[in-house]
């Protein structure tokens, strides 16, 4: 890809994620019962919605380096990863609306969004649970002598759960093709991750397990792209797992209804000023019209996705009893 095309592609991915998240947020108003917010009836997106607004540069910069055959695993905050890996916005919106035409047929929703056709192996409702799954997928690639790799996204809070250690150790012992991506938005739900994390941080932990990597400004999409491309090159050469620590910020609350009043106003203001999309637009040297064209296309895409999702059919009740297991199929009570 020529560097200008690449820059445009990065912009497009970020813009699509931002637009999707904004629309999903809008469609979810009132949709969660935690954090004291009540449920309302006209809600279109139900349940907890973890928005990646402000973190767009990380999935964009990483996934531009992946082919369709490469795989990713994600977290509860997975819309960005899904779009960046090439999934259809329309089918994701349908899923969030709980419709039969969604990726998961309405069975998963936001927290379990997946598109196996583009190698997106699933968001996960359990912090750090995607790490062993990514490692296993990479192990399977090795056993099958395939050339693809796996990118494994997780949050800063996840580095304090056991599977982080176990998964990294395993990947290195077996020299598996995985890029571990710590998408560090500084917060773990309502708690500052820093306050609960000892030592020199994620990369230091990875290095102690023999996994080299890089730390990068996760709001600088070109820097993320560059760092990821170097690491992924190494992985593709068979040099085993690598680690990327990308520092960014969570613009919104932990879930869409969380006002996040526990954060310092100045900290938030500083982060908003460092919006990865604004920063990119300021520095990219691309023509305004080009960017606006993309912006317009993106808005149309979102509007279409919302339209399609709102009109899409609900899953049949019977769908509750399919895709569970073959043995004993039908014996569901």
């Amino acid at each position: 890809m020529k560097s200008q095309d690449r820059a445009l592609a990065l912009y497009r991915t970020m813009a699509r994620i931002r637009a999707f998240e904004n629309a999903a947020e809008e469609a979810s108003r009132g949709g969660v019962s935690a954090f004291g917010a009540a449920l309302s009836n006209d809600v279109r997106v139900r349940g907890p919605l973890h928005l990646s607004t402000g973190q767009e540069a990380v999935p964009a910069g990483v996934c531009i380096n992946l082919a369709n055959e490469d795989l990713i695993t994600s977290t509860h905050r997975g819309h960005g990863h899904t779009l960046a890996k090439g999934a259809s916005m329309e089918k994701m919106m349908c899923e969030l609306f709980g419709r039969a035409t969604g990726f998961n047929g309405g069975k998963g929703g936001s927290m379990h969004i997946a598109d196996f056709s583009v190698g997106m192996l699933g968001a996960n409702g359990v912090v750090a649970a995607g790490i062993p799954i990514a490692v296993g997928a990479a192990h399977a690639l090795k056993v099958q002598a395939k050339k693809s790799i796996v990118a494994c996204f997780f949050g800063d809070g996840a580095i304090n759960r056991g599977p982080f250690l176990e998964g990294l150790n395993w990947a290195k012992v077996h020299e598996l093709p995985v890029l571990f991506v710590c998408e560090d938005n500084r917060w773990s739900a309502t708690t500052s991750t820093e306050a609960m994390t000892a030592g020199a941080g994620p990369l230091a932990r990875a290095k102690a397990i023999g996994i080299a990597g890089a730390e990068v400004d996760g709001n600088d999409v070109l820097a993320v792209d560059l760092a990821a491309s170097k690491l992924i090159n190494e992985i593709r050469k068979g040099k085993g797992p690598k680690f990327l620590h990308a520092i960014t910020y969570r613009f919104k609350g932990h879930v869409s209804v969380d006002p996040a009043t526990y954060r310092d106003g100045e900290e938030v203001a500083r982060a908003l000023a460092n919006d990865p999309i604004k920063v990119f637009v300021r520095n990219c040297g691309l023509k305004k019209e080009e960017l606006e064209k993309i912006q317009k296309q993106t808005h149309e895409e979102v509007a279409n996705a919302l339209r399609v999702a709102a009109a899409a059919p609900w899953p049949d009740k019977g769908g509750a009893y399919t895709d569970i297991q073959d043995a004993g199929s039908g014996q569901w009570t």
Partner: protein
Amino acid sequence: MDVGKSRLSYGGAACLALDRAMAADARVVALGEDVGRGGIFGQYRGLQQKFGGARVIDTPISESTIMGAAVGMALTGLKPVVEMRVVDFALCAMDEIVNQAAKARYMFGGQGRVPLVARLPIGIWTGSAAQHSQSLEAWFAHVPGLVVVTPGTPQDNHSLLAAAIDSGDPVIYMEHKELWSLEGEVVPGEKISLGKAKILQAGSDVTLVTWSRTVQTALEAVKRAKNISVELIDLRTIWPWDRETVLASAAKTRRLVVAHEAVRVAGFGAEIAATVAEELGIPVKRVGGARIPVGYSLPLEDEARIDVEGILRALTNF
């Protein structure tokens, strides 16, 4: 706060119980993710401000160590209240609950005890799908050493949490994910014993045993069960369950229905139904969730829930 009745939410009633317990006994501490901010359901609101970060302890996202550390604390003189947010995440701490907390006192021949309360909310949590909607009370009833409590009302959540903290046993304390904002009259400090069921309504034709959020569904079903006189029992404690009350009621009505939100297959309803069948040889029925993961989309989620009609059908179809 302590005099007379207050109108409190289910979550607030528990918070008040913990507040009182911490004020009364310096050994009581609380620990878990986000407790410092009051817990994501407000169930620890104000406690860190009042008792400080040394007793209301924010933790990393480390479920194994939250539970394991609580066991260590309990063995050495504290009485920890452990926040797991939802039972589904406690699956990351099952060794610590089942191999350590439940067995330590016995394995060590009584040299130590494990007085801790682990809060593992159960139930379908609307729109939260399969990994946030499980009800696993039957699992813990199966594990020697554990007490299992499932409060269904603000008063019970107040009084039973206090009793659990008091008990000196490892207690799996299972609030319901969709009851946090349920309001009700609460008499602060009122005592309720672990292991005691409550007869919510006397009746003569059929005994209906239930617990947790399903109490609400059952009340509605009872209201609509026209020509049958139902004796409705809120079990409240799953282990030790109140066999006496249930058996006495069933011996009188000669029919038993157990209803719970948990998956019917191998749910705790099976234990109760089997016991009653063994002891009394009367007709028994169970109403429980289908053996399916809980889907995200509303029509799918609804399939995983038990409803008033299902209970009504059971009550009327003997």
